[in-house]
Structures are given as structure tokens and as C-alpha cells.
């Protein structure tokens, strides 16, 4: 990697790249832009057309059960965090993970913390 000529990714570029990573990993169809208030746990709900179909015409109680069942689990969150660290050269402290579950917070954190020296070499 040419460190001298490296320029940080813009927020928009980070978002697009991250959406691609999530779609690959979770096999979803998330599209840009993503609601900044969205929680990472809800990504599958908004990115999976099959889940969305299930959400139609169901009562409130069933809706809650479906939402709960399709939340991204802690292992998936951890896998995404590992990919973020490798792709963007960011080191996310364990204690920060819980506070970065909101889309806007996470993208902002990545934008502020990019370090080319820590990026995965390809």
C-alpha cells in the first residue's frame, strides 16, 4: 500500500463499501443509503426480501416474534467488526462495540479512525 498517497475514504464511500461487505456476509440486498438511526441488529430485517415479505399482514405479536428471530446475532456482529477492522484499518475496543450498534455511530467511528497501516494487505 502506498502510504504517502493514501487518502481516507469519505463517509459515503465507507457506507457503500460496508453495505457491500454486509450483503456478501449476510447474503442480503441492502441498498444505499441506509437509515442512519438503524441498529446493526436490524440489518437483516431491512435487507432480506424474504423477511420483509413475512412482515406483511401479521399481527403485532407475530411481528415482534419475527423481528426477534431475524435479529443479527452476536456472532454476526463480531464477524462484521472483524471485517471492519481488516478492511478499514480500524481497531474497535470491545467496550466500544455496544455503543457502535447504530449505523450512523459506526460509520462515523470508522471515518474518524481509518489507519492505512492497520489495513489488511491484499
Amino acid at each position, binding site marked *: 500500500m502506498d502510504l504517502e498517497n493514501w487518502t481516507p475514504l469519505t463517509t459515503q464511500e465507507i457506507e457503500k463499501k460496508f453495505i457491500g461487505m454486509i450483503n456478501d456476509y449476510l447474503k442480503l440486498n441492502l441498498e444505499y443509503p441506509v437509515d442512519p438511526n438503524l441498529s446493526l441488529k436490524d440489518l437483516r430485517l431491512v435487507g432480506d426480501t424474504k423477511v420483509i415479505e413475512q412482515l406483511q399482514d401479521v399481527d403485532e405479536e407475530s411481528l415482534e416474534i419475527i423481528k426477534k428471530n431475524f435479529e443479527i446475532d452476536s*456472532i454476526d456482529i*463480531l464477524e462484521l467488526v*472483524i471485517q471492519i477492522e481488516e478492511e478499514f484499518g480500524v481497531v474497535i*475496543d470491545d467496550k466500544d462495540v455496544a455503543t457502535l450498534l447504530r449505523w450512523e455511530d459506526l460509520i462515523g467511528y470508522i471515518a474518524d479512525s481509518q489507519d492505512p497501516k492497520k489495513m489488511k494487505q491484499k
Partner: protein
Amino acid sequence: MKPVYIVDYAVIDTIGFDIESNYKNLTLLAKGPQTCTRYDVTEYPHILCTKGYEISQYDGRNIFSKLHNDLSDQLLSKATIPSDSAVIVSAFAHSGNEVRNDFDNSFRGGMSRFSPTKLFLNNNDLMSANIAKKLKLEGFSSGVMAACSSSMFNLHYAFTCIQSGVISSAVVGAIETPIHPSVQYYWQCTSAISTRDGGICKPFDKNRDGFVQAEGGTLWLICDEETLKKYNLTPKAKILSIVLSSKCYDTATMTAHDKTGKSQIDTINKALTIANKKSEDIAFFNAHATSTLIGDDIELDVFQQKFKDVDIPCVSFKGYIGHTMSASGMVESAYGLEALKNQYLHPNYDLTDPISDDPRLITKAIPIKGDTFIKASFGFGGRTAIAVFQTI
């Protein structure tokens, strides 16, 4: 006792991805040990890889999970798998070591985290759970460790669970990807594998010097009669008996089975008695014979003592497909079932200078009669499994 049926089997090995055509073309397709191009093999010459995977994008880090994923797909395409089926599958020499090395480097490098998915997919304990997840099955998932006899011990476990009514169906097998330098090194240290000419596999031949490891695996769907009817399944074969024993003291060691042959013959006798078969009823004896110096000698002696006056051909399939380690027993049993189906038996591969002039160590393909054969499987630790299978 409930009869136990083999509905179908998926097999992936060094010959290819379709056992039915593999068997028919065995002598044409097999070229003996294949050279691995995945690693620098100069220090680990005796290796054999699964065709298709070797030339694909799959490297050692994900070949293990890829293999059990593909086998699951293959079995699913062949048969309806009841959702309450148990999954009993194991591996003991697989190359999850590659991921293990990454994990160790991460640990020593003080990295704060490591991908749990990589760990889970390469954990042989969780392999049965991964397969259950893939096939959406809810029966228990587990696996038995018994060295190179592991798959046959798994089959015994499933067989007895079905016979006793604990379960009604099971996906059973073993999957092995041992082509990794550290795995090769491990087996070199046991003096069990071939180091001559880049690795040669010549069961029952005077010029043998050890086994040749191979990637591969198998998954079978087995069940009771009620399940056959309920799901309208047509079985390929029946497991008449499967008997286990282990002896590794006095006349046996950790790596060599009972030199007197008594322990192995007792196990064969029990298997025949339970199957209600006589030696004369057996179409052929499918040997474990791996091409090791001591193992093949002991096994041939067992065969000749037990079947002294009976004209039964004796064949090992390892010269064609290599030694799939924990999976070998069931992978080769599937080949045995194909032999019965096709009513001819391929010869021992590359057997040019046999250790005995016994003509039953066949060197040419022969027609076979009957519907029943014996499979012998021997693993380190004196592990012995003898099964009697019958086609339907």
C-alpha cells in the same frame, strides 16, 4: 431387532464427485497418488488431493467446510432426509490445522479477537452440528472418535440407536482433509505413511512402504422400516451387522493389530453370526489394507485364517482413492455396495508383486455373485470394525 436400511450415500473422494460413475470407471480414472499443488510439498511428498478441490479456488482454510457442505447438498439431492434425523459424523486428521495456525498467530500476536465462524467451521466437534444446520435437522448431532475406524464406529452408533428405537433415521459419515504439512509431518512421525517416489499406495504388494493420505468423505442416510414407508424411500442396502472391538496390549500395540489375528477373527465371527451368514455367503472381503508393512501382513493373515477353505476375493480400494483416514471405512463400504450392484469387483490397484501367491488377492477385475460383503476397518489403538452389508 429392527432392520436398518441404507437409503443412499453421498461420496466425494480423490476419484471425483459421483460414486456411481466413479465405480464404473475406477480403473480408468484412478492414477494413484496425485501431486498436491496447494502447498510446497518438497518436504512432504506423500500426498493426494481431492480432484476438483485441488484446482478450484478453495484453499486449505475452507476446504473442510466446503467438503461437508457439498456432501450435504449431494445427499439432499438423492433422498428426502427426515427432519428428526440424528447427525453422527466425525473427522480426526482434517486440516483445520490451517485455521488453527492462524488462530495461534492471532493469539501470540496479541490480537483482541478472531473469527468465531472460522473456528466453528473448522472444529471437528461442531462438524455434525454444521451439517445438521445445513440440512435443517433436529435429531441429536455428535460423532465418535476411533482413529481410522471413526466412520464405522459412527455407523455402529447410529445402527444401534435405530435398532433400539432411540432414533428412526440418521445422517452418518466422516469427512477428512488431511493434506496439510503439519498433518503430513504428524503421520510421518508415526512411520505409517509412504515416503517412496512421492508416495505410493500398493496394498498387499511387497514394494509398499506406507499409506497415502487422501481428502474425501461420505454421508449416508440410514433409517428403520417405518421411516422408509413414511417418506416413501427406496433403500439401496441393509446393514446386517456391525461389530466393534479394540485390543492394543500383549499381542497388539497402539499401531499394530493383534498379531495372532484372534481378536480380529473373533470380531468377524460375531459379525457373521449376528448377520446370520456363513463365510460361503459372502461375495467378497473388502480389506482395510492401507499399504503399511505390518498392517497388510496382519490383515492378510487374518483373512487367510478365517476364510481358509472359502473362495472369497479380497480387495482393498485404497490404491485407487488413498487413505481417507476416519472416513475410509464408510467411503470404501460405499464402493463395496457399488461392486455388489454392478456385480463385478475391481482388483487391488497396482498389485504387481503380491505378498502372497493366494489367488484371492485379485489383480484383475472379476465378476461376483451374491448380495452380501464384509467390510473390515482397522484404526490405531486396536480399533476394529467389521460390518456385513447386503444390497436390496
